[in-house]
């Protein structure tokens, strides 16, 4: 079957390298036409990652890339969050399928505009919220839907990582990440655009697993662990869903990394994504690294350290990945993307409510 001709608009998102160098599932169905990035260092990294793909053309201006490739069928939006909106609009104008890194935009007016202009859009729009494809979270959804845990009373979910601040170009700029510079609290030097902006998964997963919307949130943010980081590295959130389920979410950068220019973890686990569901009839707990291994290796991504990692899974369905799901939608083999623009925006509304709660030190009701 013909591969999908795709452009890559921006490489700022830390997940983009996984697509460019082929580590993400489903990539074999893509034909990369071109990659753009205004940052020459990032563009050089993309060139290096794609050196085995001589057909790929590299651009410093994403608009020129769009103009030069009218044959493109799809675009992967992976720029700094601030530029997602303009790229999205241009992609719609050109009638392209859209695969966007999250968050699509922290600006809710832009989000509303994106919804408006794609109300009757006949192309696929998918937001990369890839934890839908982790079997232990799929199993959680199944348990809840089948009522095996009884009435759900509380959900605890963390999405804690290290910060890419030291080794990912331009990371930690509030303007690029959040879209504007807004202090976390009145008079604070630390601004929005850190751990919370970077981790929409918990908000999306809780909606997806329970089928419930968030009703209200209260959030706090500690002093930063990293003095050189201009965006927040800690946020903790409590809240309630429409059905009264109590929730706790921590989407922080609380795992420290070494202060060197490469990815070198200090805390030996890059991602703590732990889910705990308490129901009236049962309890379920899952970890992203549910089949963990410990690796120490001089050539491992975080070398010469004991690192917790996952050992992979057996896949029985070729469409069982975020990109394969997108490809199936583009080819008409699947009706609806696994994670839609609406899903991405619903998470953003809760995240912005959490920021507002921290700023005003009060409970915020979620806007509908």
């Amino acid at each position: 079957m013909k591969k999908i001709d795709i452009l890559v608009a921006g490489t700022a998102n830390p997940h983009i390298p996984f697509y460019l160098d082929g580590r993400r599932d489903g990539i074999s169905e893509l034909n990369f036409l071109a990659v753009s990035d205004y940052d020459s260092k990032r563009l050089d990294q993309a060139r290096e990652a794609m050196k085995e793909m001589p057909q790929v053309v590299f651009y410093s201006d994403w608009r020129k890339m769009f103009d030069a490739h009218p044959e493109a069928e799809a675009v992967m939006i992976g720029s700094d969050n601030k530029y997602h909106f303009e790229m999205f609009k241009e992609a719609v104008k050109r009638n392209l399928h859209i695969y966007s890194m999250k968050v699509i935009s922290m600006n809710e007016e832009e989000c509303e505009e994106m919804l408006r202009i794609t109300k009757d859009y006949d192309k696929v729009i998918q937001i990369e919220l890839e934890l839908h494809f982790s079997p232990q979270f799929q199993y959680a959804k199944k348990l809840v839907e089948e009522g095996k845990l009884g009435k759900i009373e509380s959900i605890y979910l963390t999405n804690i990582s290290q910060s890419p601040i030291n080794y990912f170009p331009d990371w930690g700029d509030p303007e690029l990440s959040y879209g504007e510079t807004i202090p976390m609290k009145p008079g604070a030097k630390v601004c929005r655009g850190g751990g919370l902006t970077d981790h929409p998964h918990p908000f999306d997963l809780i909606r997806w697993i329970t089928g419930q919307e968030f009703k209200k949130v209260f959030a706090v943010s500690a002093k930063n662990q990293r003095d050189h980081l201009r965006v927040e590295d800690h946020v903790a959130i409590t809240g309630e869903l429409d059905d009264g389920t109590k929730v706790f979410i921590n989407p922080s950068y609380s795992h420290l990394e070494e202060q060197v220019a490469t990815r070198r973890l200090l805390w030996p686990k890059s991602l703590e994504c732990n889910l705990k569901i308490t129901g009236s009839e049962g309890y379920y707990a899952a970890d992203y690294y549910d089949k963990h291994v410990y690796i120490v290796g001089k050539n491992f991504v975080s070398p010469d350290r004991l690192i917790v990692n996952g050992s992979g899974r057996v896949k029985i369905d070729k469409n069982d990945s975020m990109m394969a799901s997108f490809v199936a939608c583009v080819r008409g083999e699947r009706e609806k993307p696994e994670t839609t623009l609406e899903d991405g925006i619903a998470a953003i509304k809760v995240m912005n409510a959490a920021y507002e709660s921290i700023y005003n030190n009060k409970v915020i009701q979620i806007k509908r």
Partner: protein
Amino acid sequence: MKKEIISPLSASVRSGNDFYSAYPLREWALVKRIKQVVKDNICGELCSLRFTWQKPKKDASSEEVFLYETLAGLIDAAWYLANAPLATLHIERVPEKNNLFALAMFKNEVAVEFELNECLPNSMPATHFIKANFKNGHVTNQPLVGHFNEEGSILANDSSMERMVIENPDWDDCTDEIATCERAMMRAIEQGAYPAGALHSVEIINAINYALGLNKIIIPVKEAV
């Protein structure tokens, strides 16, 4: 002289210093170790704390103890470690249950997360963890992986607790990691991704027999290439 020890609730309405308030978690070895780490400046400045307090419901305390001894004691421990006055406390509690999440901010911007759940199924053990995040390090007894620092997910009800390895959500035999290997092998064979033939069977069986001194050599190991 008799030492009078009273609950935090009683202490809250009493003045003077002729009694002791019962905050035994101040003497929790983990709390004391974190306090020492702060004092010795081993990890730099303390930024945030997370307290995890979980029990099966058969061991749940009364509501009064849960709120005014356990939660109060954990807040006191947090205060002791943060070493600054409490500025904000927010609680989300499951109605009429010993199950809540709480967030606290101290005046020095140390944030504290509390997860208190005494509604675990009766098949589960209690767990008590603290994670302290500093500017230059971490101190914790929290598992690195999962609920008990062991592989897989946990599914429990009052009568049993299973440790599951979920390869695919629609597979029934999620409890056995090795059984999933057999599934994976069958699938690999179907897809042509698994080599045919005896593989190293001859050498392996011969080697076992040879090593055990059993007279069942099929082909001498040295000849089996």
